[in-house]
């Protein structure tokens, strides 16, 4: 499946390293200034992939030809005097849960092996329209179910900070690709924390936009009412540029909301949070939180105070029930969403020996094509929706969801943003939790409430714990995504100044 290009002979290793370390904004600026061509930027990324992805295994599919063609088009049009967008020529890694013409879409599952979508997701068509260069598809937990990328049918991705550890999940390929300098930007998707948790454990900025802010058309659904695509980047400003490129109303997605896109790019550059009210969520701390994570979080909050924010403690009592509610709602929706993988129209087909009936072929294909975590959730969701159990499980979980939304609404009457650690622990070793699903589920303890309530949330690097990055989560009310960037931009600048460099500069060389 993996299709790695060989390093190009024409670019020196030193030059490649320099180019791939540029932020997206700097890459775009260099291309705009004529100091760098889009082809050079793309080739540098492809070379980096060829060099390090054997170790990291972020990419499931590298579209070198398509990427270089897109880059050439940018260079040609720029040469012809055409004015291009702020990310023109910047390479990007796409989570393999979004459809893109000309590339396979596997969702990390055996059941879609070899399937090529005949259409572009809206996120992808917007990226193409913005002249972003799509390098290829990156790894993920099967159908975005997991927190470690170990549930991929194509093998796990490794954390660039420590390759014996998980990169988080489900957008582990997206995070690892950016942290390993294979791409300055990646698209992930976040159903219960799948952008923010990998961003935190890989030392990146990751944002789950407001539900309805980014089109889900072409995002292969895990849990329709929770899924949202968003940016992963090395800086707040880069994340803002990517966020702005993909956000906005889409008539093809009924749940996408027709409101103006929040001014995230402008907010990321403002760097002034004096007087801003910040609430620390009391319930997202304590037992189960690594002391190092807690210390890094506390230090980041002190920095916010130093920047002039008013920090108070806020209680969101129902957040305690978020995890169990999530593990009823998401599997319920997934049990229905994944019913279409039935061997009839696309993807894997097992047992069609001319004798077996359709029902048997469906069963055999699903038995062979889905991994254990996907099956676990389909079974869980099927049970939760069953006649006689619906009210006790799905119905009850929806009520909890309402209560969590009310907790947020009440909190946002007092404060402008809420903060918490992004994850209870830093990246854990590969294999540590594969046999303990509940321990794995706890990785998303802090991130799930925003998915249930629909509001936007960002993870920002807070610091290192024993050489491993951890994140601070910033949460805002629905459609106030710009507040994340306002706080994130200011905090990032202050934390970088404190340590004298960006956190990623401390990542070990690969």
């Amino acid at each position, binding site marked *: 499946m993996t299709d790695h290009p060989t390093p190009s002979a024409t670019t020196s290793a030193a030059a490649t390293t320099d180019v791939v370390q540029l932020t997206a904004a700097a890459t775009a600026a260099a291309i705009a200034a004529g100091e760098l061509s889009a082809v050079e930027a793309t080739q540098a990324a492809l070379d980096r992939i060829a060099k390090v992805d054997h170790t990291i295994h972020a990419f499931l599919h590298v579209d070198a030809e398509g990427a270089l063609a897109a880059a050439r088009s940018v260079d040609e049009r720029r040469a012809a005097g055409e004015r291009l967008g702020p990310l023109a020529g910047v390479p990007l890694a796409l989570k393999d849960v979004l459809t893109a013409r000309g590339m396979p879409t596997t969702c990390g599952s055996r059941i879609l092996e070899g399937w090529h979508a005949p259409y572009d997701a809206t996120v992808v068509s917007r990226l193409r329209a913005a002249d972003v260069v799509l390098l290829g598809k990156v790894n993920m937990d099967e159908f975005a179910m997991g927190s470690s990328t170990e549930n991929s049918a194509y093998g796990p991705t490794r954390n660039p900070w420590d390759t014996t550890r998980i990169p988080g999940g489900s957008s582990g390929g997206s995070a690892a690709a950016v942290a390993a300098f294979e791409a300055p930007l990646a698209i992930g998707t976040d159903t219960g924390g799948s952008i923010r948790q990998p961003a935190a454990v890989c030392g990146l900025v990751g944002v789950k936009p407001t539900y309805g802010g980014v089109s889900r058309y072409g995002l292969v659904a895990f849990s329709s009412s929770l899924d949202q695509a968003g940016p992963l980047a090395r800086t707040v400003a880069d994340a803002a540029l990517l966020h702005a490129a993909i956000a906005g109303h889409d008539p093809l997605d009924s749940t996408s909301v027709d409101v103006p896109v929040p001014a995230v790019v402008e907010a990321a550059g403002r760097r002034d949070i004096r007087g801003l009210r910040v609430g620390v969520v009391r319930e997202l701390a304590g037992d189960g939180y690594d002391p190092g994570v807690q210390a890094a979080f506390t230090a980041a909050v002190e920095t916010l105070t130093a920047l002039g924010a008013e920090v108070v403690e806020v209680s969101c009592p129902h957040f305690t029930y978020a995890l169990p509610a999530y593990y009823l709602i998401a599997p319920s929706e997934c049990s229905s969403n994944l019913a279409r993988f*039935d061997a009839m*129209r696309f993807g894997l087909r097992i047992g069609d020996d001319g004798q077996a009936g359709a029902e048997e072929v*469906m069963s055999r294909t699903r038995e062979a094509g889905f991994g254990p975590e996907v099956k676990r959730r389909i079974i869980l969701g099927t049970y939760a929706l069953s006649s006689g159990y619906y009210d006790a499980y799905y119905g009850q979980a929806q009520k909890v969801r309402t209560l969590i939304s009310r907790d947020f609404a009440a909190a946002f009457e007092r404060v402008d943003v809420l903060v918490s650690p992004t994850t209870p622990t830093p990246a854990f070793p590969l294999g540590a939790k594969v046999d303990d699903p509940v321990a794995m589920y706890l990785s998303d303890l802090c991130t799930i409430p925003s998915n249930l309530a629909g509001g936007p949330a960002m993870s920002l690097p807070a610091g290192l714990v024993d050489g491993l990055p951890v994140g601070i989560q910033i949460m805002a009310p629905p459609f106030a995504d710009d507040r994340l960037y306002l706080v994130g931009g200011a905090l990032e600048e202050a934390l970088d100044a404190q340590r004298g460099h960006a956190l990623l500069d401390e990542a070990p060389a690969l």
Partner: protein
Amino acid sequence: MSTAAPASALPSYADALARYEPVIGLETHVELGTVSKMFCGCPTAFGAEPNTQVCPVCLGLPGALPVVNSAAVCFAVMIGLALHCDIASWCRFARKNYFYPDMPKNFQISQYDEPLCTDGWLDVEIDGEVHRVGITRVHMEEDTGKSLHVGGATGRIHGATHSLVDYNRAGIPLVEIVTEPDVRSPEVARAYVDELRELIRALGVSDVRMEQGSLRCDANVSLRRRPAPGEPDAPFGTRSETKNLNSLRSVERAVRYEISRQAGRLDDGERIRQETRHFDEAAGRTSPGRSKEEATDYRYFPEPDLTPLALPVQYVDELRVGLPELPAARRARLIAEHGYTVRDLTDLRNAGVLDLVEQTVAAGATPAAARKWWLNELARRAADAGSQPSDLAISPADVARITVLVAGGELTDALARKVIDGVLAGEGTPDEVIAGRGLAVVADDGALTAAVDAAIATAPDIAEKVRGGKVNAVGPLVGAVMKAMKGQADAASVRGLLLERLGAS
């Protein structure tokens, strides 16, 4: 264990009715006549090459999302309003989950506990008696694809070697109209479907062609013992559901058969199985499909890919005000204004000429003349051509003009038929055809008198009979004159003239 008893063993229908009261409810699926599908932009035209009217959405490809077709919502609300339903100000779609190869997503987007329209009624009239049928609900959903089972003798899945699926139909908007268990006879069941079809046709929201499946009916039938005088009604019995009845006649026959079949089982002390059944048109019998008792749990839940449907009061009110005249009101008006009988209206409707007749009257014809020409001459011509009367290349205004000319004596019926020939042949308006073909009635008495005298001279024996008082024997002489005049005379005048000449008037 087979539940299909041999027909000979069944009690007679009359016998069954004497002891049991049938309780019948009907579920009718109607394909809405929207240009595009329920949740995507694919066309809905019937009869296209298989799998040519599909896209990622209606094929249920990974990542694709539905978007509600607002025209379908509008049509469904119109149906609800015409059925006197309450229209929900807020409702949701729901997923009905089950696996079947012709269902692309393996769930159907439908409505469950929050239907768009509830609590209405439809009156049907049989022989002057009005039966009110309660409407429980009208909800929206998408159609499935169509399976074609190949290799078996019957086209059914049993015995087939493989199956093909055409997804052109997948995603066509449907409404399901569910009645209360109010219907008590096969005749009322049939009349209900007939009236519902007329209603929906009048709304212009579906072509309601049962033979093409754009209107399909399922009949729920149960029996309960007739109470002795003074006893309360017995509780409802267990029902069977006979699926996909595709003609009015099948509705009536299938219900009638089920009444006899169930009576036979109850007489034998057996219980009725709650099951779906198929109606075999050729044999006139129903046979069991899958048993509902072992059927799937559909695991309904609100469709998370769609936002709730919240229709503004003003939107519904505008549709209510804009509803066209409905069949019952129209029938009352036509009886009052045009003097038609209920039977006339039935005949005109069955011939597919009711609209045309009304337009012809509006264009100046008398109701009787319009009825006569459309029902007899023009409906026959359409049938001969294998088309619908409305497809004929003659307008109601043309027909009205012809009837006016006939009434004024300027055309005979025979000449009028020739004028119709000319109009249908594209020779222009009736007046242009008359001019072009020289078809006006000959009013020149000289030519007519000569023809009359010649006819009498040629057939002296007939003339003698008429003179002798056998007035009805004049027919052949009239025919001879008309022939001589090449039809350009008025037959009634010719007859009068002949009788006068023969001293028999």
